[in-house]
């Protein structure tokens, strides 16, 4: 995409692109107007809010009236006991989510591509994608039906088998696992669509040739399919790098809520900021943290992209 920007800049040297389009592509420009207006109002104007991160902001005084305090808000966040914990949790959970969902999505796609029965294939695909259409609020309730101590399905089954109960909602150590599992449950099937599409796009003759040469199915997956999926996987990986400092607020808010017992492993930057905002009304710091997330995410995308360009240039996004 940055390549695109460079190209656009290059075109300007010859003739002003906008002037050219005004002359020749009036209709197309007209079609862009509502969209550009939208991004200006709802994405670019709020960028002014970045200023708030450097202010002792109060809503009464507004952006123009609030005094500047330099990096005080950042210092307050980074100096607090919680900043390390919430940053670590955010990164740790996201790393778990990204790696596991990549592996499981690819595995589901591979299995679906091996299955020949059309009816079975469609049915299985429908069912594994279904949870993606359910909101985290609902998943929160589903999780309760399964995990709660007195009535939950798992504990009822354990008691039925004469085993001790597990207090899921009191044991923070279990939650990275539970969240990872639920994240897979919700998203891995949906994530497999892209990989399945890539697999379907591979020339069937390659597999045929491999089969004639005596390769087993596992071997052709290992030596043909997986290497060909690398480009897609790396592309998705780079894109997720940009969001690695942004936690899944909906998920954690729905599943953990205000259960302080679980905070040690589940409190992420986003829920922390939300609490600072709602309980303390600290507008300056929450803006500072949002900026901290964006900048770190931007750096991560660039690092990931640079590494990719060295290892396999065709997968890099810019």
């Amino acid at each position: 995409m940055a390549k695109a920007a460079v190209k656009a800049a290059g075109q300007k040297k010859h003739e002003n692109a906008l002037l050219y389009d005004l002359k020749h592509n009036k209709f197309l420009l007209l079609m862009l107007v509502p969209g550009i207006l939208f991004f200006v109002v709802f994405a670019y104007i709020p960028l002014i809010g970045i200023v708030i991160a450097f202010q002792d902001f109060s809503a009464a005084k507004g952006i123009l009236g609030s005094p500047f305090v330099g990096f005080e808000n950042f210092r307050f966040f980074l100096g607090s006991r919680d900043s390390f914990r919430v940053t670590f949790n955010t990164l740790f959970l996201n790393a778990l989510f990204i790696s596991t969902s990549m592996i499981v999505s690819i595995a589901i796609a591979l299995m679906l591509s091996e299955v020949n029965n059309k009816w079975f294939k469609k049915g299985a695909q429908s069912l594994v994608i279904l949870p993606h259409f359910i909101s985290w609020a609902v998943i929160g309730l589903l999780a309760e039906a399964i995990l709660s101590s007195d009535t939950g399905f798992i504990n009822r089954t354990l008691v039925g088998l004469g085993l001790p109960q597990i207090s899921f909602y009191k044991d923070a150590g279990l939650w990275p696992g539970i969240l990872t599992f639920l994240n897979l449950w919700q998203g891995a099937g949906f994530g497999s669509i892209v990989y399945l599409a890539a697999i379907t796009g591979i020339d069937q003759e390659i597999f045929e040739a491999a089969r004639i040469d005596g390769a087993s199915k596992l071997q052709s997956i290992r030596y043909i399919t997986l290497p060909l999926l690398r480009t897609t996987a790396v592309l998705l990986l780079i894109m997720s790098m940009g969001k690695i400092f942004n936690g899944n607020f909906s998920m954690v808010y729905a599943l953990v809520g205000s259960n302080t017992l679980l905070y040690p492993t589940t409190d992420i930057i986003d829920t922390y900021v939300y609490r600072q905002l709602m309980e303390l009304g600290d507008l300056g710091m929450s803006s500072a943290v949002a900026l901290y997330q964006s900048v770190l995410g931007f750096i991560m995308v660039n690092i990931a992209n640079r590494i990719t360009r060295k290892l396999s240039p065709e997968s890099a996004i810019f």
Partner: protein
Amino acid sequence: MKAKSKIYIGNRIFTTACYIILTLLAVLCLFPFLLVLSASFTDEYTLLWEGYKLIPSKFSTGAYQLVFKTSQIGSAYLVTIFNTAVGTMASLLVTSMMSYALSIRKLRIRNGVAFFVYFTMLFSGGMVANYLLITKYLHLKDNILVYILPSLISPWNMMLLRNFFETIPESLAESAKIDGANDMHILMKIILPIAKPGLVTIGLYYALSYWNEWYKAMLYIDKENLITLQYLIMKILRNINFANTVAGSIGVSVNVPTYTSRMATVIVTIGPIVFLYPFLQKYFVKGLTVGGVKG
């Protein structure tokens, strides 16, 4: 010969394993829904006594009667349907205009605009700035349009649809132009019909995000009759006043079927999605495939 049959057996085992694992995964995905469905059709005592079971020993529709009689589910449904219908239409219109224009190679500023959009995927002003903009300057607090206007275009969907438009050969539009058709005519009569799978896919994504909206209700809506279904669920989940509201409105404080009615609410909320889903599934798989492979 021996090696060949060994490979054959290996392949058979592998394929069978695929069938078994996929069946297990499918069951795993369906299981929580069945559990909740059965919990919603039983009475409170049975649920508390037996816990969540696949087949409850006692059948009851009491929870549903209560949900429809007492909760705000009616107004929440109306708000959510309005958002989903109007929002999806508006989003599709604006997004497809932008995506189409950006897919035309003769448009010189297209790469510049694409970067302008991509940039917003990386940097945002944060929650506070958005909150101030929406409440103080646009005055959208407690206005139903707050659900639609700020999420009119998703940059991700816009890019996806642009990739889809790019797969349509430009020669098609060119030849129509030579025949004397204007741009509007080309778009309506030639491009949009071809782009239908892409539009349906993006439309589904938008519909889903409008349907599942709760965050905006939490931030911007104080009026009870303007909240969305999902926020209602979130409130139930967080136990905010739900038991009290129910108890207060029917004048009893004991025997209130809280647990079963929560589950009934879940079923009432996700019902439409689950029913529509099989009909729409083929579109988004197709659309995502075409738009997504190119990245």
